[in-house]
């Protein structure tokens, strides 16, 4: 038997010492283990960036594709084999910049996949340029007069688009991040978890300490079924709330909407098609 734990040690990890990615990896592996999933039925899908290297550091299937393009293959993998648990993972540049259009349409399709976005508000692997979530005014080697464009608010965007599960975690708190990821994985539908993460090499503003001081957990008074309330919390800027903002189990998932699964639940690769059926079809349709 192959190792049935998600723990994977046969790798040399390419992250900077002290990177927030280590905490997220710890939280993710613990969440996968506690969710009692089978690594042989779990696929981690990513694009490009430091966060997108995550699949190489977890014991599971790996689809490490192109920058910005994790969501289309993740959607297709789940659609072609709904028996698989599919987790897409990447950074803010990968998912909110290069892959922004796919995010919008993944939310519309609502495949049952989990999307983890390591949001460190900077481009790390390309050495410190602004990302879609970099705060205005921050000076970088490219944005030398300070960032002008307003940062993208992924939670407000996702809630506005009707994403059925929208949460934010902080790598500063491994335990809570693990709990939120577990909920996202268990959720039947598209689940976005934006994860605050300090970049020790290139973001000197949004540090470990900064995230600690500028975040606060949503309390029991928050009702995740209340979409308008969730949106209000998502646009708060003074202190940035953490936790599950919105949760609506009502939406039908993409794969369960597909006609191919109405009668037959088998993944596509287990099916075959007879030449007789094609011959009859052609004769009937094109005679």
């Amino acid at each position, binding site marked *: 038997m192959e190792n049935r734990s998600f723990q994977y040690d046969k*790798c040399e990890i*390419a992250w900077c010492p002290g990177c927030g990615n280590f905490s997220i990896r710890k939280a993710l592996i613990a969440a996968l283990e506690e969710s009692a999933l089978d690594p042989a039925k779990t696929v981690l899908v990513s694009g490009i960036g430091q966060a997108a290297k995550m699949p190489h550091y977890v014991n599971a299937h790996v689809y*490490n594709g192109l920058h910005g393009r994790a969501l289309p293959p*993740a*959607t297709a993998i789940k659609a072609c084999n709904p028996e698989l648990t599919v987790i897409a993972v990447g950074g803010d540049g990968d998912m909110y910049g290069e892959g922004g259009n796919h995010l919008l349409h993944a939310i519309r399709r609502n495949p049952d996949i989990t999307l983890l976005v390591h949001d460190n508000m900077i481009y790390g692997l390309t050495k410190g340029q602004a990302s879609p979530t970099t705060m205005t005014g921050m000076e970088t080697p490219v944005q030398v007069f300070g960032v002008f464009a307003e940062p993208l608010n992924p939670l407000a965007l996702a809630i506005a688009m009707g994403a059925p599960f929208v949460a934010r975690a902080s790598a500063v708190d491994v335990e809570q991040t693990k709990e939120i990821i577990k909920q996202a994985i268990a959720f039947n539908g598209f689940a976005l978890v934006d994860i605050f993460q300090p970049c020790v090499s290139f973001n000197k503003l949004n540090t470990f300490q900064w995230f600690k001081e500028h975040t606060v957990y949503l309390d029991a008074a928050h009702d995740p079924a209340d979409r308008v309330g969730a949106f209000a919390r998502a646009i708060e800027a003074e202190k940035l709330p953490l936790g599950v903002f919105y949760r609506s189990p009502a939406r039908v998932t993409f794969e369960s909407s597909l006609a191919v699964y109405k009668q037959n639940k088998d*993944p596509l690769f287990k099916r075959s098609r007879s030449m007789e059926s094609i011959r009859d079809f052609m004769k009937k349709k094109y005679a």
Partner: protein
Amino acid sequence: MKELNECVNIVLAGEAGQGIQSIEALLSRILKQEGYHLFSTKEYMSRIRGGVNSTQIRVSSRRVAAYSKKSDVAVLLNQESVAHLKDRISTDTIVLGEKAAVSHPALIDVPFSGIAAGIGNKLFANSVAVGVICGLFKTDPARSEAVISQHYARKAADIQKGNAEALRQGYALAGELFKDKLRLNIKKDKAGQGELIYSGSEAIALGALAAGCDYACAYPMSPGTGVLTAMAEYSKAFDIIVEQVEDEIGVVNMALGAWYAGARALVTTSGGGFALMTEGFSLAGMIESPLVIHLAQRPGPATGLPTRSEQADLNLVLNAGHGEFPRVILAPGTLEQGFQLTKRAFAIAEKYQLPVVILSDQYFVDSYYDTPLPDLGMAADERHIVKTSPGYRRYDLQAGPVSPRGIPGHGEGFVKVDSDEHDEAGHITEDLGLRARMVRKRLGKLELLRREAPQPELSGEPGAGTMVISWGSTYQAVEEALAGSRGGFCHLHFSQVYPLPPGLDQLLKKAGKRIVIESNAGGQFAMLLERETGVHIEQKVLKYDGMPFAVEEIASVLAAGR
């Protein structure tokens, strides 16, 4: 009095939305049912209403499958079609139209809409036109009416009745209209009655169906959309996921995800869409994933002529994607090839784990003719996937260029693919020696593909005469022109344009002179042939006005170049 014994060419023209498509659909069905061989092709403008669109229908005693510039009968529904078809209407053409709408010196007035209005609705005018042509061929009235009724079966009863009446009245007119002008003596071929009639788009979609394709995705783009529509139609009867994706980048990446999970995915697009897919095309090369893309060419650059035809994306596909990796390019010349090559595209993609492009064009996908049921061959049950064991390595170098392909959830092993250079297990590597081995692994497939590449189809004997070389959709026009020529030619047609088989230089050298005929301005295939074989191509006949080669155009090249 004109007398036609073998073939009649009819052109129908009018503005978009006037119902040319319905006339074409009805006539094709009725005339095929009568036992004639039939070909139809359309050319149209990139608009929803207005302009001029035309359809050519050729009705013949023998199989015809190519566009002809000759028009024996023209049915013109608007004034603009007169100027639009000026090169296709001669003094020999019988021109039918409505005086109120069309002015032409040779016009024979047929009050299509007057008759239709008399029946109760101007919209019946198309069925009057269908009736006139049916009358010309003296089709079986009851069978013709049955086709009309079936066509309008889902409409209200008065619409059905009105169209049937319009057909009858049009039919009745024909005797008088063509008297002393045209006599037909086209033999019916009863054998043809059992044949099928479908378009190039459908040939490709049916090939995919036979190949076991169970996932089709695209972003709509003329002229590639017909294949998507056909797959969507087939998904009502077969297990196929059909998804319209947000953009072409999403399309190609989704298709790769589907292949990774064990599905057989088809992508359909045109040049501009494919240009957007090229990074994903390169990814297929790197992760060694099967990928099948249908690219229906239209004239570029950029938006170009969105609804017209060209063969100018060969260089794009040959060179698409950064980095070095093998690919296969197929270009069907017949409907049978559209079917068989698409089936083969899946087989090659799966066997060798690489991208295969089916390069068609607007003319090919929008042309219909009757054709026998293709040989369906064996079911494509073999998915070329393995059940993985613990320790499975996706890029195992032991197995040569092609390592066994596993999929997640099938076996005990892990399937790891990476767009970075990777080790045998599929993890990122910066081991530069391993990098070089992986490059050789990927490119090593090219030699295997070359060995398996089919020889081009040769008709006629290569001797001292001229070898006419074509690829893709120009096949039929060249064949028909050659059949009508005085000899001295052979025809070499390529339906696999890359990689080319070994020994081709010897074959090319057998002829005294070589002419390549292709629909582009640069002579892209001629250059590829010269580069691959070192044999000089003496003449290039190139066309790039957006229209396909007509039989007559090739015939005049042959007459001049013999």
